[in-house]
């Protein structure tokens, strides 16, 4: 079982030590439709949980992405600038957005685990 955690806004975060990889869920990319542009923060930016982390532009609309935890952005997925449709093809993997140094790992306790998130999205359908 992965230690991946989910927000109600459909971001995911997976910890490797203190570094959290952040992306949006497969459900989110499906709702958005074809992604044509992803705006990511600069490396080094410090975010508080729920701060805007970036913007995903699909053909239809723009959607804000929020930080699932507080911390410093240490890497962004450069691949997305030339190939934004990676978000559609592999939201759970290659379509990740940023890696952040998570300040307080305990913040993740407030987020949903995979089972809770699955039943959460079922409730939205």
């Amino acid at each position, binding site marked *: 079982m992965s230690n991946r955690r989910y927000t109600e806004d459909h971001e995911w975060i997976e910890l490797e030590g203190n570094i959290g990889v952040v992306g949006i869920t497969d459900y989110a990319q499906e709702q958005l439709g074809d992604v044509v542009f992803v705006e990511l923060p600069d490396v080094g930016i410090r975010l508080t949980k729920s701060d805007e982390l970036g913007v995903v532009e699909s*053909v239809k609309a723009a*959607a804000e992405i929020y930080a699932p935890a507080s911390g410093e952005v240490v890497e962004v997925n450069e691949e997305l600038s030339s190939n934004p449709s990676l978000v559609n093809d592999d939201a759970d993997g290659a379509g990740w957005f940023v890696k952040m140094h998570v300040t307080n790992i305990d913040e993740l306790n407030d987020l949903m685990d995979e089972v809770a998130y699955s039943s959460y999205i079922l409730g939205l359908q």
Partner: protein
Amino acid sequence: MESTSGAHKAPLKHTPLNALHKQFGARMVPFSGYQMPVQYKAGIIKEHNHVRQVAGLFDVSHMGQAIIHGENPALNFEKLISNNITDLADGYMRYSLLTNESGGILDDLIVTRRSTDSGREDIHIVVNANRKDTDFQYIEENIDQFCTLEVLDELALIALQGPKSEEVLTRFNTRVADLVFMSSLETMINGIKCFVSRSGYTGEDGFEISLPASKTEDFTLRLLEEPEVKLVGLGARDSLRLEAGLCLYGHDIDTNTSPIEAALGWVVDKQRCELNSFPGAKSIFKQITEGVSRRRVGLLPDGPIPLRESTLIIDNVGREIGYVTSGGYSPTMERPIAMGYLEISHSNLGSKVWANLRGKKLELTVVSLPFVKHQYHRGV
């Protein structure tokens, strides 16, 4: 990610193809009071490209269809719209505008002049879904007393759009090949009496087919058996019409925009303006002779970020000079495109203007419309 679900007051209406859409994996969204397919499994970009390259089938049954009959319906209905229809040959149609007394646009519509079996003339109109109730009430109240408006609630409307449309539809009835852009005929297709016009909202060659709601599902399933034909949702319909530079009512045009500001002067008959023979004609004529202060233009953003409706446009010193009315991503050009209104002094082709987006200044170039060349079958 921000939630996109919204609360709805009235229950959403269904078109005759509602079950079919769901069966084909559509994502259904509320649109103009209807539950409509925004996309199917392929997604907007693939659906869009299929229309440009092959043939896409749209359900546009949410739009309002009506007939005006009685005494001289063309002559009488013409009094409410911006251009002529009495000169239309039998079965020919025109894009037109219902205008208000101040010269604003109440709706844009397609008007067809037809001869009925009994030899009498009638006028068939197709209006926007979110305007149909208002339009129909307005027409009833304002048309000559010897004319009647008959709302065609029992009819559905589907559109087959794309370069292979003619090839597909002629398999059912060869007569449709004789139609040129903006003409129509009543004919049997697949054993069903249809009103077929060579028209659409994508910039491609194609047809719109009006037919009894009760027969529409079988009819559509039969068309979908043709290998070229795929269902296309409203998402691609929007990106297609934006590439074609076509206005979306309530966004690019409304009661606060005039036909001249909207760059729809070609839909206005100058002589009838001068004679003040339709609502708002006087003020529109004044705009033709004296000019307008703003104008609808095409906008090409520099870079990969799509601009959305309501984004403000500024000049080189940061003064507000306009706003975006439609914006998105063009699958054909593989880049963002937009339309909007600009102060007339900034509206010349090639002008550079800017948009402030999330703290960044994006450069935009004023370009001519359409973005993607129309492929209408004009028969020449």
